[in-house]
């Protein structure tokens, strides 16, 4: 267990702008800094899932928390596995500061080495990692940790519940087809903090729910951030296409 200096406090608006800029940077880094020069096309319902484990954890100020990012994929419809993957994580609270991000076993093995690139941005509470199998071989499938993220809880943190989100992700099959990705986040309860259960009525636009379903208020703690991750994914697709066209 260790600690890390708490990031400099920012006013909310500045904080938000910084985070937004950081997210864009993460996407660009994922796509251009770590795309390993492939020219992928994308798959549709064929999805790779990234999720943070455990999805809830308690921590005290001054502690260090290690979370695993688990990757789960069937591979392509033709059975090919994933040859390279990249992801970026971000926390939504100054109480949590990423201090390290390391590869997990998902892509390793089968006689392949891993090319790994990482970056930790404590100021913007974010980190990214990209990994590529060399040689790619048949690629990887299944469900295993693809990365571990180490977070320091600020020594002076107030009680809060902070979200650890995967704000960018990509998985490319050995056939150079890029899979769609889904993400799930985790919550770190600092010093007994509880999540805000106030929002999300569970009835997205364009969906009709049966009238006898439980009140939507029961869905208060629906997994947040999913839409954001999707938006990032769509942005990533667009950027990928532009990148590919310029090659």
């Amino acid at each position, binding site marked *: 267990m260790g600690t890390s200096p708490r990031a400099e406090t920012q006013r909310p608006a500045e904080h938000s702008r910084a985070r937004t800029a950081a997210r864009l940077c993460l996407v660009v880094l994922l796509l251009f800094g770590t795309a390993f020069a492939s020219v992928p096309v994308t798959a549709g319902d*064929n999805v790779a*899932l990234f999720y943070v484990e455990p999805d809830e954890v308690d921590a005290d100020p001054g502690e260090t928390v290690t979370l695993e990012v688990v990757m789960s994929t*069937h591979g392509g419809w033709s059975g090919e596995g994933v040859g390279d993957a990249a992801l970026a994580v971000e926390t939504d609270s100054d109480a949590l500061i990423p201090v390290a991000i390391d590869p997990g076993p998902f892509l390793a093995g089968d006689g392949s080495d891993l090319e790994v690139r990482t970056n930790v941005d404590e100021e913007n509470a974010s980190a990214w990692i990209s990994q590529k199998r060399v040689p790619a071989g048949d690629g990887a499938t299944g469900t295993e940790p693809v990365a571990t993220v180490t977070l320091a809880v600020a020594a002076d943190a107030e009680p809060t519940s902070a979200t650890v989100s995967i704000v960018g992700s990509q998985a490319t099959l050995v056939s150079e087809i890029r899979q769609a990705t889904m993400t799930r986040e985790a919550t770190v309860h600092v010093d007994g903090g509880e999540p805000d259960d106030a929002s999300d009525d569970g009835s997205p636009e*364009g969906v009709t729910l049966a009238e006898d379903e439980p009140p939507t208020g029961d869905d208060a703690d629906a*997994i947040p951030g999913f839409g954001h991750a999707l938006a990032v994914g769509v942005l990533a697709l667009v950027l990928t296409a532009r990148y590919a066209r310029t090659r």
Partner: protein
Amino acid sequence: MTRNDDSNATRERKPRQYRTNRRGFLSRAGAAAGLVAVTGCLAEDDGTDAVPAFPRVEDPPEAVYVPTHREAMRVLEPLEAGEYTLASMLSYPHPFWLVDGTETVPVEPDSDLGVHMMFTVWDEATGTVIPLDSGAEIRLERDGEPVGTPRLPWTMISQEMGVHFGDNVPLESFGTYTVEVSLPPLGVERTGALAGRFTDGGRATFEFDYDEAFVEEVVGGVEYLDEAVWGRSGALEPMDHAGHGDSQHHGDDHHHDDGHNHHGDTGGHAHAHVPFSALPASGDYPGTHLLTADGAYPQSGDATFVLTVLEAGSRFADERYLLVSPRTPYNRVPLADMALDVRLERDGTTVQRGPLEQTLDDEFGLHYGRALEDVEPGDELTLTVETPPQVARHQGYETAFLRMEPIELRVPELG
């Protein structure tokens, strides 16, 4: 498990539980749909579990449920094919379910490369969407050379698109493809403005570009819904309804009743009007409606049934006519290719029994009907579903309309 390519059918499937211990998630979804998850159902040859190729709801309810995502597609300009009008819609290859009796058979794509090709067929004069039963054929060419073998597409229903027909079509590479679609003469009984029409088939040809921009469009346009609603009883609105804020329940049968019978392109392309196969609202049917004891329209297998007895001398029969209109909840999509049988009993004695005939009418859409020679108030009417709708299903419909209990109703005073 069925795959289009037998060479890829070597994987044995088995159920697998997957982590879903999201706090609160189970408490939300558990009551509605059991365990809901991004789940695994594949087992690799070495026995290790793998995960599914697409997000789905595990152990969904035997009812219409909200799927995990909303598809995106490119809608091409409608074409004339004989008397038919046909719109082609292209998306990415994805799974669907065939129906064999009361069981479903999943069909998965051969490959990530290719398209899911869909067609909505309608009568331009009346706007009636036509549920083709079988006999359509798709042929592809590229640079004048055949691509693959001719495909016989499936009649399908989806929450977003209603009745259509289609199939996954694998493609080996990007390029411009020519598609010839052959439509058969219409086999179903036609009435009203459709009577005597569609006795000949039709043929249409179009081209499409399968390229990176297309893939970006249809994959980037996929919208994954919040997991909180996955597997809950409900449905995606027809495409054109999403985002318009006009969603509403229709009271008696939970169907939309906003008069919109069309849908739009989610791929960002402007396109011509393509009708959505919504049946009329229950209240728009004439005659004496047969309701349950509590005054509701009967349901079976999560389908809603509008049953009405029309007066003698209607345009359907000289005698009274029983019109049965089974439809999906929420979107009022007609349920085709069913075998229905009706029995009328009076004082414990059967006075009439027999099958209903599937009929396509320009005013009441697809329905099942039969003349009633002898029907009186107080008769006990039993409607038996001998065969549930034998149409393929998109996600969210594959567990509904399969095990359908008989419907028992008492005939009220007849108008």
